[in-house]
């Protein structure tokens, strides 16, 4: 395996290979053979790092974001509740948006829908950590806390090729395309533009106090009279709710019905906190 270390975006241009920043997700995926790459491209010198008002470099670590007084509370809380201090010191916000699901069937290389197969093993099998929305073909749950926070905040991404709303980064896997993101091959997230809400918060239910992925994460951000709610851990992608009533339209599996109750309780709390 080759490691390339370009020092500028120009130098990166046209290079093949997989982008490596903090490596907290990619390295285990490579080690477990879930991702294969001939070339890794260390993008740390290429991707901006740091926070300037509402503009966040994609190379900024979660540890830097969680203590940034200017960043919205939902984002800070989501970062602080993610992973462990060691991982947050390595992991970047850009990489975090692209991290792979923790679905055990997918991680254990079952020939599941997300891997290109025809069935979702979780639907028939063990799925207590899985989805309650968008789970018809694949019941995996998206693991990112900050993604839900950024979604509720109406974040826009700037890549090396275009600008797009964060909501458009994610797509449910379909028969024709099993990917959960809309990035083109080689496309690199460079910056995030995060609007400043009047108030925001992130609440997270976990199996233990810290250092585990969300069973349900709830982000809420209030802009004027409008409050946006986004959830983590409930669908194959971060999930935006039109309103709290959307939870009535959840499609839980037998083992994930409790997540609907959990989401209801946390959404109510988040809305109370912003009121």
């Amino acid at each position, binding site marked *: 395996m080759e490691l390339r270390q370009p020092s500028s975006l120009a130098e990166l241009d046209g290079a093949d290979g997989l982008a490596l920043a903090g490596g907290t997700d990619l390295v285990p995926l490579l080690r477990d053979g879930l991702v294969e790459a001939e070339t890794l491209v260390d993008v740390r010198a290429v991707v901006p790092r740091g926070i300037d008002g509402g503009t966040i470099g994609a190379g900024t670590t979660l540890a830097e974001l969680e203590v940034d007084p200017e960043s919205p509370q939902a984002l800070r809380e989501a970062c602080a509740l993610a992973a462990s201090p060691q991982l947050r010191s390595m992991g970047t916000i850009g990489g975090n948006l692209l991290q792979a699901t923790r679905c*055990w069937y997918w991680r254990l290389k079952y020939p599941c829908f997300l891997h290109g197969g025809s069935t979702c093993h979780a639907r028939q099998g063990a799925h207590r950590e899985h989805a309650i929305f968008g789970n018809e073909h694949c019941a995996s749950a998206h693991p990112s806390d900050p993604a839900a926070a950024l979604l509720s905040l109406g974040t826009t991404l700037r890549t090396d090729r275009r600008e797009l709303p964060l909501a458009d980064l994610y797509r449910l896997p379909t028969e024709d395309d099993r990917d959960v993101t809309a990035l083109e091959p080689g496309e690199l997230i460079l910056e995030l533009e995060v609007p400043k809400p009047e108030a925001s918060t992130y609440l997270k239910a976990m199996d233990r106090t810290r250092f*585990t992925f969300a069973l349900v994460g709830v982000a809420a951000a209030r802009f004027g009279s409008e409050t946006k709610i986004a959830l983590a851990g409930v669908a194959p992608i971060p999930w935006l709710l039109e309103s709290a009533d959307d939870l009535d339209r959840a499609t839980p599996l037998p083992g994930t019905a*409790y997540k609907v109750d959990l989401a209801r309780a946390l959404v109510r709390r988040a809305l109370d906190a912003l009121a």
Partner: protein
Amino acid sequence: MARLIRTEKEVEGKYTEQWVVVEGEDEALDQWPQGPRAVVGTPARRQDGLQRARGEAEYTADLQLPGTLHAAVLRSPYAHARAKVDLTRARATGWVRGAIGPGDCHVLQEEPSFHGAPVAAVAADSLREARAGLELIDVEWEELEPLLDPEEAVKRESFVDDTRHYSRGDVEAAFAEADVVVEGEFRTQVVLHNALETHQAVCRWEGETLEVYISTQFIWGVRDSISSQLGLPPDRVRVVCNYMGGGFGAKNSPGDHTYIAIALASQTGHPVHCALTRREENLAAGNRNATSQRLRAGARSDGTLVALEGEYVNAIGWAGFNGPTYGPIEMLYACENVRTVTYGAKLNLPPNAAFRAPGFVEGTFGLECLLDELAGRLELDPLELRRRNYADKDLVDDRPFSSKNLLECYDRAEPHWARRDEVRARSEGPWQRGVGLASQIWYGGGGPPSYAWVRVGSDTRATVITAMQDIGTGTRTAMAQIAAEELGLPLERVRCELGDSARGPYASISAGSSTTPSMGPAVRAAAADAARQLLEIAAQRFHLEERVLSLRGGQIVSADGGSWPLEEITGLLEDAQILGKGARGPNPAGMRVLTFGIQVAEVAVDVETGEVVVERIAAIHDVGRVINPLGARSQVEGGIIQGIGHTLSEARLVDPVSGKVLTQTLDAYKLPTIADVPEIVTDLLDIPDEHLTNLGSKGLGEPPIVPTAAAIVNAIRDATGAEVHELPVSREAMLRALAEAREREKRGAPAAV
């Protein structure tokens, strides 16, 4: 003189009669008076703490014998299959140095019967090459139907062990006469040991001797198993374990990996290292089996238990043992009429292994939760209910206890229990708070045979030599403390050398809370033998009678007030050395040696989200004399933290269709982290058992985990009225129990508290 004694030996409740050779002065020594002494009973930091922290301590994984090859194991990806193994392609390479399949080693299976069962293995110069070598093994798999449901296994009579039946008194008649009968079905999950150091061994032939460097809880058991499996004289097997990173019961025997390393070492003529990865550790290194428990308790209106009944199904897996889930219901209370039946379901799932008080952790959860439900029905204080059913003798074998201070434990629990009004009053919004308690019973008496030597040199330093292992509990330090106390030396002048069957006498297993009670008395006897010799020499040197001399504070002290530095005697030794020998004597005949205790847990439950936070646990245990209060507290804290994981977050999950293990890594299998650790208050009675050995010490490794789950779940019930009957208390389990409690209340059933 050596004496041959016929004695009863107990390991985790299994009794066997055996011959024991005892030499030395175990029984001749009076116990020290109760209370802390100069060294014993005084907190001591681990003597090897710095080596461990600095990475200098050599674990099996650190060993680098010249020419070592690394093994990788091909494991069954199916819960049940037939495997036709072809090693031709692997053997044809130059770099696969050894390759074995079924027929080459008895642990490799042609019909693997659980996910992770070893089927074949290779050795190569590096682990990376060994893993690549696995790709060159051709296997024709024929997948077979797995049996996964324990109830179905019972129906089909698919059992690992014989079904165990027990009864005393007339249970049916007693239930008929009971004023109140409560019943319930309880379930516990599979949990994994996850010792920091995975199972591993390095095996090497040195001439006709097989050297086995292994992370083990039982050097001599590994030696015995291997010698009988290979047909070698035991003395041709040398077993070494200087440092190990935990075992929790899963490292009592050699394990498949060791036999694989031996077979590959024999085939290649090289040392072979076979270490499990974390994934393999979570697949095939043993587990605490799941249980289901149908329980019934009958009582008079004053709370006196008149009948107890338990039907237990241990979901053992493909192999293992039918553990004593029935233990607490038979042993904890003074109930005349008890009946149990215990099935050991054989399933196409990975085998169980002993795990920190196997059976009793699970059985205590069911029994002690049911007892609290009984207390609720009777409107009786749960602590008072337990006092009223105190057993002053062992009802299983009709024997007196060697010592039992459980009532004193209950008294000391009172102030913690009395906090409940204040704790409940701190409930706020969705956060409901409550307090729960549970009693503890377990073995922990240890026994013979166990031997130790103590060597004293001209430097006035002493070395304890015994071929035991330090599982990680601080045994080295505790043994040095005992010898130092007996020799009247400061602790820093005494060390303990252990870990090598070729370099010390036989020592017992580090399991069953038996290390201190088995080894400690032998070490004290050996130190006393060395002290006696030193005093004999001193008597000759100073022309005094030996009986007026003693060793204290590094001095030889005479009854008339004279004292001399011990150096004056050891200085005479030059290159000569004093060697004391000691043996563990038998346990008190006709008595039942057990440990007791109680824990009081305080919890907060978020009734809207099902979150459970354990805020405080007070642990009061009666384990005889405490050797090292610091090490003992550490054991209590470790047991409780492991118990919290068992209660709240840990669960090994399998795919219900295929029987494959899904939680193989530590992101999916959720051990508690430091953020889950509550305030822990440790209170050890420290009352020597006057009938047990020259120390009066019992073991403490297991007692602290026994009542934790029940105490937490009883506190949840106190806080919310919800009756949780399953572990772990996950969000979904807690929300379900809360919903059921609300239903009960709606139907007008009496409130649970």
